[in-house]
């Protein structure tokens, strides 16, 4: 089941590589949030406890409801145009993503022979980290940068479940809250950038250099 969900997660990454609409990015973030929630709930189906549901619920609220809504609100408020404004051709970007994912999957397979890791979730998580970075590098709009950062965070989360690290719940919730506040502050900053620097892509940020 974990593998099926991870592959769905990978498909969402491919969709990111293909789409050029801003709204699609938000939809992908929401979709990934749902996958991660299901992934967390899944082990507890047989032995139900209220305590075990605190983390998935927080995750759902933060990643599926609050953050996508907040980003949508920013898009509406700032009147962000529909297209994502890539800096390289969309086709090159797709090739880059596919190429990176092949390398990651092959490497993970090799690594799994020496260490016991769940290959597919491990590789999917790492792919999301790399795709998130690609999105940040090859897109101009700041709002897409934030989305890229969130894809990267989702990747780390999936990756964390793959290495079966058991962080205490308090700390997991702490990390979720941190991410939420980061996005919140970035949203405020974007509002200010669009009003004072009259633009919301990286070209507006060029004042500070040596």
């Amino acid at each position: 089941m974990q593998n099926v969900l991870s592959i769905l997660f990978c498909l969402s990454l491919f969709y990111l590589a293909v789409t050029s609409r801003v709204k699609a990015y938000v939809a992908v973030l929401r979709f990934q949030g749902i996958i991660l929630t299901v992934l967390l709930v899944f082990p507890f189906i047989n032995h139900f406890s209220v305590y075990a549901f605190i983390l998935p619920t927080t995750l759902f609220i933060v990643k599926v409801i609050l953050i996508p809504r907040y980003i949508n609100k920013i898009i509406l408020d700032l009147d962000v145009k529909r297209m994502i404004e890539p800096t390289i051709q969309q086709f090159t970007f797709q090739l880059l993503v596919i190429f990176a994912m092949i390398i990651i999957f092959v490497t993970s397979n090799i690594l799994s022979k020496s260490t016991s890791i769940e290959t597919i979730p491990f590789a999917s998580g790492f792919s999301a980290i790399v795709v998130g970075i690609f999105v940040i590098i090859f897109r101009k709009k700041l709002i897409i940068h934030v989305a890229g950062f969130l894809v990267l965070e989702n990747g780390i989360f999936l990756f964390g479940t793959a290495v079966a690290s058991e962080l205490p719940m308090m700390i997991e919730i702490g990390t979720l809250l941190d991410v939420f506040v980061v996005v919140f502050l970035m949203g405020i900053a974007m509002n200010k950038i669009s009003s004072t620097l009259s633009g919301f892509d990286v070209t507006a940020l060029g004042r500070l250099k040596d």
Partner: protein
Amino acid sequence: MFEFVLLILIPLLSAGVCYFLKNIRLQYSISLFVSAVHLLLSLLIFIGWYKTDLPFFFSTDSLSKLFLLVLSNVYFWVVLVSFSYLKRPVTPNSEEGKRYYFLLLNFYLFANTAAILSNHYGMYWVAAEGTTLSVAPLIYYYRNEEALEAMWKYLFLVSIGIAFAFIGILFLTLSAKGTPLEGQQLFFSEFVKQAGTLNPVWLKASFIFIFVGLSTKIGIAPMHSADVDATSNSPSPIAALMSGSLRVTALLGVMRIFQIMQPTSTYDFAKTILIIGGLLSLLFAFVFMFKVNNYKRMLAYSSIEHLGIITLGIGIGGLAFVGAMYHIIYNSLNKVVLFFSAGNIHHRYKTREVDGVKSVLNILPWSGWLLMISFLSISAIPPFGIFFSELMIFEGMLFSDKPWILAVTMFLLLFIFINMGKTLFQMLYKKDENENIAVEKEHFEIIHFAAIFLLILLIAIAVVSPNILRDNILNISKDFGIKL
């Protein structure tokens, strides 16, 4: 438990109180009181008069005691001068920034203390991210375009950096597969005890990710750009806070994993990476000092230089490690003085460009002299502390297995000194044609008092060399397996 309340919960509570208080003076009084209590307790813990008994996830050792004292001390002076700083007139839209100033400062103290005292990598991560969140809005204090850009870059880059550090932490759990640590919590102390059993490949990967990720916060080249922008565009108390304590807290995360790697076969690998990072930082500082025309950026590069020296010292080991620990203390004191003086100059001249600042010694005698003395101090002129710590680091380099590093370091430092000196003396001495037009004499303010006190402290610690400090640093060296 009592110290947990005082060190961690009270700052959080005081942040909450500051939110509801409209009066800035009242916010200041509360924050100052909290910082004084924090400093006193940190000092007591450091001296050993107070034995700590912290709850789950937190604990103290020699390293965290030292870092806690550094944080408390810098924070206290920053809060002390903050009120006189906030009284200065600013543009109308920056008035808004004052309201949240003390709230964010208190939250910073809360998050940073939690990061330093944490004994768990997850806790450290959450708290370190908390410090970024509290500092980012403070960078935007002036509410101008440069500050906005600096804040965005800092928030974004450091968040990504710290996400990388999280990947490193996950790799650390992977390295524990098949050892008694598997499925256990990520406590530093446990990992140090069982270090020999960890998987070296994953441990190396973990170190790389944690080092590169936290470099954005420490300001080690080549990940330093956001840090330079942030330090140079934030108000000077915040710049002092970042240079003096925030960078060091990030360094703590790297030192923790370095400590874990010490008994393993990966130790030399980690040392090499630290040395490369340190030398690169010196190189970047060296290059940019040639062309820098903004004096606050120059000080930010100086921070990178000194964090580079510290990283280098830790990487070399031996006596250089001990020197690096001393350097952390002296550098934090010295950076506070430098940024306070630079802040006074910025306030009078309204520019950060070197060309716009002339004849500082005549117009601002107090700040001018303090800037000059603190520059001499940061350039390792005796009897200031930095001289002694750098001497120790250099001696360590000379007697290590890589003595050529000393030659490279000396060469880079010489030119950094010359370029920095040239720029600063131009600001201090170059005559201004309009100089005689009625300039108001500079009054002695609390900022000058703080700066003079810290400079005296800088000499006193070096000359007196208290046994408690020496023993503590020797204990840290012992924890890191360093034989002297």
